[in-house]
């Protein structure tokens, strides 16, 4: 990998001084960072969801329940490791490994910060980088899905297979939207190397000019990681646990680990491509000539942004319900992919006009704004279509037939239920019992207006 990064010039990060022990330190640091982050992420998720549901969440083991996920991991380790009889042995064992190993690969190209001095060696806080680093991330994600798919298939059981099939369809469709939303970043940054993309966001972070792409990425990253509201491959209401139904003990834990590492991965990609990577947010970045954009400080900003996305994941999980499968596919194919395509074409046209006609971006935008304004003015000149007059509502509460549609419906504003026959009879009986000769009074409740 060292020679690779030497050979390619358009990568901003300078790896020229790296030695083998520097790589070893970085690689081990990344793995340790990911594993501890997963432990914290599980605790974080449970705690935040608990807050959203007005309950305390894990609070017994350790301060604030911090050791809860450690205890859970220990429990998973010592549980009985079962291999189901109908399973395809080799694939069954290999599948969780594929999932975890592929999820560990992504962080190799994520920049945590600029060049720092590490034991006297000037090296960037990034394991490696090359001109197609973001494509490499997509490739790792694509291979990682084989873990889910093969795990579901090899279990030799119906629900896991259904989960696997769903996951295949889901990942293929959402990877398209995801890739397309990243293309506009490549166009503006002029590179697919992560360090170069971070450098290109010195002036403005890409999520502002590329807001539609950012939104599409956020939606498809949730779909890509099988998280609520898109967790259809493991929808426990429909498929027990989907592809991991037949897994137990450590093999199950590996799938679990892979899912959380993938969350960290897509969050890191979103941070790097749209939120300026390790760059300090605006007011802080101006302090003392960009002091906070140098040295080890950027790690802090990077982690803050990363955990912001992790919070968004939990936030979405706590507030949105699971989609139905057909709705989910409809969003992917009929909304996200066309929108992403249109956006890429728009960005391509603007960038092309800027580069090849020598026009300034500002004048291009002014022309576009002018076209929009002219269109708006013209739309005002088109006479409005006459609305048919709304049917006049007769005054006073209306008695309606609640069984008109076949089953009872509650009254709308201005409607009242017809007097209840049961109530009438009850009152009649009461009157008879009390030996009164007056007729029962039926009061009509008026709902709403």
């Amino acid at each position: 990998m060292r020679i690779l990064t030497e050979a390619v010039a358009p990568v901003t990060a300078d790896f020229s001084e790296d030695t083998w022990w520097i790589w070893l330190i970085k690689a081990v640091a990344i793995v340790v960072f990911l594993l501890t982050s997963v432990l914290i992420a599980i605790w974080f998720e449970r705690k935040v969801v608990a807050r959203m549901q007005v309950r305390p969440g894990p609070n017994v083991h350790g301060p604030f329940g911090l050791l809860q996920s450690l205890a859970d991991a220990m429990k998973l380790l010592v549980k009985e490791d079962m291999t189901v009889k109908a399973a395809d042995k080799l694939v069954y064992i290999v599948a969780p490994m594929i999932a975890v190993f592929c999820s560990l690969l992504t962080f190799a190209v994520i920049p945590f910060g600029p060049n720092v001095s590490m034991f006297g060696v000037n090296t960037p806080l990034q394991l490696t980088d090359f001109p197609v680093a973001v494509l490499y991330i997509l490739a790792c994600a694509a291979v990682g899905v084989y873990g889910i798919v093969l795990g579901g298939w090899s279990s030799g059981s119906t629900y896991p297979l259904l989960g696997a099939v769903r996951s295949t369809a889901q990942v293929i469709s959402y990877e398209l939207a995801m890739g397309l939303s990243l293309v506009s970043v490549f166009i503006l940054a002029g590179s697919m190397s992560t360090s170069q993309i971070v450098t290109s966001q010195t002036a403005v972070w890409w999520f502002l000019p590329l807001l539609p792409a950012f939104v599409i990425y956020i939606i498809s990253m949730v779909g890509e990681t099988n998280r609520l509201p898109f967790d259809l491959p493991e929808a426990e209401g429909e498929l027990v646990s989907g592809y991991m139904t037949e897994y137990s003990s450590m093999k199950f834990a590996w799938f679990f680990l892979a899912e959380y590492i993938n969350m960290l991965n897509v969050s890191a990609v979103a941070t790097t491509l749209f939120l300026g990577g390790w760059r300090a947010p605006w007011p802080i970045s101006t302090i003392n000539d960009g002091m906070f954009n140098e040295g080890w400080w950027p790690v802090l900003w990077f982690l803050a942004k990363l955990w912001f996305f992790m919070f968004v994941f939990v936030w979405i999980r706590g507030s949105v319900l699971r989609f139905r499968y057909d709705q989910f596919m409809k969003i992917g194919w009929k909304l996200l992919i066309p929108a992403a395509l249109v956006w890429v074409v728009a960005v391509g046209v603007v960038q092309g006009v800027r580069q090849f006609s020598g026009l300034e971006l500002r004048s291009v935008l002014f022309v576009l704004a002018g076209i929009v304004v002219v269109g708006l003015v013209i739309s005002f000149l088109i006479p409005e279509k006459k609305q048919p007059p709304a049917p006049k509502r007769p005054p006073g509460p209306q008695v309606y037939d609640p069984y008109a549609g076949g089953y009872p419906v509650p009254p709308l504003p201005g409607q009242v239920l017809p007097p209840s026959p049961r109530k009438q009879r009850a009152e009649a009986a009461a009157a008879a019992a009390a030996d009164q000769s007056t007729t029962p009074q039926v009061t009509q409740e008026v709902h709403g207006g």
Partner: protein
Amino acid sequence: MSGLATALVETGETTTAEAVLFWILGPIMVLAALGLLFVKKAVHAALAVIVVMISLAFLYVAQDAVFLGVVQVVVYTGAVMMLFLFVLMLVGVDSSDSLVETIRGQRWIGLLAGIGLGAVLVGVVGRATYGKPYGLSGEAVDNNPTGVAHIIFGQYVFAFEVVGALLVTAALGALVLTHRQRLTPRVGQKERADARVATGGRLTPLPAPGVYARHNAMDVPALGPDGQPIEDSVPRVLRVRGQEADAEEFAARTERMLAGASQVRGNVPPPAAPERASLNAPDLGAAVSDTGQNGPSTGRSADSPSALGQEDGK
């Protein structure tokens, strides 16, 4: 890794690292390719192809074609083989190839043709002379994707567009061929719900079998709010086998209980509050019969203590 080929430019020799990489990946690829031919299950064959593809990607990257290597994984492994697996899974988890010969003598002809191809390949490869290897240099190494873009969108732009048009045509053709005119109106969620209500059957999920105060056995039917056993709540298998418990027995007990309760309440009112007692009894009767399966608008709501008593007597 990709610098291996760069070193080639300077020395004219491949490095040891490249040789090591090749001799590790080579046997793996050959084994996987043979596996494609000899494994029994279709999914295993697909896995073998994936191994070959990923190993190929490694070799591409080692030869300075970083872009090609990564795209190989994204497109072929990530999309094409994934679709293959998708279809294989839908076709059947355990379906294996049929070994019946559909065309007579097909196997022998295939074998002969295979041997012929092998002979030709061995002959060509054996007689080929290898020129001095040379690696990439200059722009192609410095920025691989840019170099590829220049070639595709400059030199071969027409061919590229033709291929693109061909692929779009193929996709459209698949759409047209698989399209079916809808002859009947679409039955959606609302239509299904309406139909279910219109049949007048049960709308809610079935209760679990068992009467929890005294039984929780699978063969004991659950009791509805009206005290009547719900036969459907017992699993269908048990009903078909005739292993269902006698529903009447449990129903009768409930009826007796209810009768006893209404006797106490209806006929012996506490002297202190006669009005409340007489009001309570019809309420109980109405609630008991009204919340049954038929909805609130049934004709049974005229229950009074005496009506309930009659039913009990049956």
